[in-house]
């Protein structure tokens, strides 16, 4: 059983959900047109993942195995709807951009994956640490992709113009093909980096 520290740190690099486990691809492609949206999505996934991991690991012994899936989905959906409402009320600009991808956090492979693979089998403390690690990992990855696409797609990061006015922004990065290609190349680079760092 890995130590508590490992439980947290594995989510950052070794088992980074986006670049290693290839989970949660849909939001990573769709809303990372800007760093702020990427960060916002990362934080919402983080919040939902944390709460659902806690609740699932608490109720894991009471839920009969046959109805395991619907019960966990109920819990996750509740936290997602709460996030949806809170964002809609207090951060409307982010809510409008994320649009349909907030309700889709429910079926986001990361959360369902962690609930099934981890929270169901471990106690509360480990689940919290796992959620923290995974959550930070996701937020970092989404923000990174957001930065890259915004830097080249619109010449700015978090809205601040970096590349100056002479820079001709590559509009294609904001379109769907741009998202696919950027993430594909990033995955290749990360594979290379992981190989060199010796993280198998």
């Amino acid at each position: 059983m890995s130590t508590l520290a490992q439980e947290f740190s594995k989510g950052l690099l070794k088992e980074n959900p986006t670049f290693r486990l290839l989970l949660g691809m849909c939001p990573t492609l769709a809303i990372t047109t800007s760093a702020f949206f990427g960060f916002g999505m990362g934080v919402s996934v983080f919040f939902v993942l944390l709460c659902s991991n806690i609740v699932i690991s608490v109720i894991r012994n009471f839920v009969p195995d046959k109805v395991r899936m619907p019960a966990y989905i109920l819990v996750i959906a509740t936290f997602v709807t709460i996030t949806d409402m809170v964002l809609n009320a207090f951060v409307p600009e982010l809510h409008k951009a994320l649009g349909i991808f907030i309700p889709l956090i429910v079926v986001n492979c990361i959360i369902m994956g962690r609930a099934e693979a981890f929270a169901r089998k471990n106690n509360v403390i480990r689940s919290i640490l796992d959620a923290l690690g995974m959550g930070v990992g996701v937020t970092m990855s989404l923000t990174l992709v957001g930065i890259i696409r915004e830097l080249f797609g619109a010449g700015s990061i978090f809205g601040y113009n970096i590349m100056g006015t002479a820079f001709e922004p590559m509009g294609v990065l904001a379109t769907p093909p741009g998202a696919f290609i950027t993430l594909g190349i990033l995955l290749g680079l990360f594979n290379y980096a992981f190989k060199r760092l010796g993280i198998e």
Partner: protein
Amino acid sequence: MRESGLRMALTLLIIGAICGGLLSMVNGFTAPVIEERAMTEFLQALEGFFPEVEDYEAQEIGDEVFYYCTDNSGNFIGVVGQVKADGYGGKISYDLAVNNSGDIIGMRISSHGETPGIGDVITREEFQSRVIGLNYADPISPGVDVDTVSGATISTGGMLSSIRRVMDIIGENFMTN
């Protein structure tokens, strides 16, 4: 942990009920905030078009809403329509403001899916200025009276035909005098 059917149904009932209750409570807090923010947002837009607007009365025609605006002395100053157009990337929803003599005085795109850098010209002065000042009686057929923006013909053409449709509605219902 007997796997009996009753226990399964009961578990889902309890979890479902708790979740349902929790959600409606949270909704109780957030719904008014959302409502109120949407309202202030629209009011600002309205004041943007008609600074001296005092009161407005919503009127639903088809599935679109038109706001009949009056100033503090109660006489009619203009109409703002929350309407939709067919764009390149799907529906474009926008507000169109027409003053009491039937001329377009402004428009605001509230949401669109046009391709960034190409179709989103509809949000900029370059396109909107072509339409400002036109009267509801003037013909607006895309490419004939008002030319579309090259490279974004579908977006701008869609907008122009929708404006024509909306102007007809405004003409019939509000320009009776």
